[in-house]
């Protein structure tokens, strides 16, 4: 691994991931520490193409909500 990854205080990000997991139980939520991004996958049929990516937890939550609305 040659590229130096970004670093930062992740503790708050872990808490946001845990909160988003509780709020969106049909999604797997992860924090990509090296690239400073949140990502969400549908728990069922978790295709990579279905992944949602955002820089903030609020933005990711918004994307998940819109994905839900799109499926209705």
């Amino acid at each position, binding site marked *: *691994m040659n590229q*130096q*990854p970004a*670093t*930062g*205080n*992740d*503790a*708050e990000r*872990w*808490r946001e*991931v*845990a909160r988003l*997991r509780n709020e969106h*139980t049909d999604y*797997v939520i*992860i*924090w*990509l*520490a*090296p*690239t400073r991004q949140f*990502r969400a*996958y549908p*728990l*069922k*049929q*978790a*295709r*990579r193409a279905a*992944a949602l990516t955002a820089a903030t937890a609020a933005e990711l939550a918004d994307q998940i909500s819109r994905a839900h609305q799109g499926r209705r």
Partner: protein
Amino acid sequence: MSHVASPGTGELGSFDPSVPHPARVYNVWLDGKDHFESDREVADRVIKERPQVVDGAVANRQFLGRAVRYLARCHGVRQFIDIGTGLPAPDNTHEVAQMVDPYSRVLYVDSDPMVMSHAEALLTSTDEGSCDYLHTDLRDTAYILKEARRTLDFNLPVAVLLLAVLHFIPDEDDPAGIVTALAGPLTAGSSVVISHLTADSAPEAVGGGVAAYNALVPTSIYARTHAQVTELFEDFTLVPPGVVPVSEWRPDSVAKKVTDVYAGIARKPWRRWW
């Protein structure tokens, strides 16, 4: 337990490539590519003390595949909690399990931010099954079980995989208690799979490797004896051949003999009503 880290407490710490992490050091020994200079330094120092560590890591990874196949094929287990997942490598747990039955469901648990950042490789489930990922410490057993229920049905057997992870738990944190906390609530027919570092066959050489590791990695490692590893299975019933060197647990091919890692599988007995 002296320390419980969870997302709720914020004790999991930040991603820092200058601090070696067990999952990434292990990745060096597996000839992976997801590690940094700090991890390579630890891996190399341990190799100098105990070159067999590389064979041990490979044998442990092979045991993972054999254990999952055995439980899926011979005991019909379709649900797995893989704790201390490590960085993705060929034959991840869900790939092996879903090869047997695409409806298999897996929860991965790890505390390394690098593992989380590679989690998408662990989440490519079949449409019929599902994979979840949880970022937490294995000591946080209540949180793991609570979150596992959204993926797994606890009315059906579950296999808890604790491969090369309990040797990071000191005696004062009660590793046997962690196993009991995780496996106790599971239904009959559930299983516990454990592999664990030992110095039984080469106390000085393995001790040298452990010292080299613990001098550089914040998460210390502890070798345990055959009796101590066997005690970790508590009230579960060990499947033959019992707790044995990892390369000797039902080998499916001719493999190098590895004596620094013990492995075993135990099952929760079905209740007898008569």
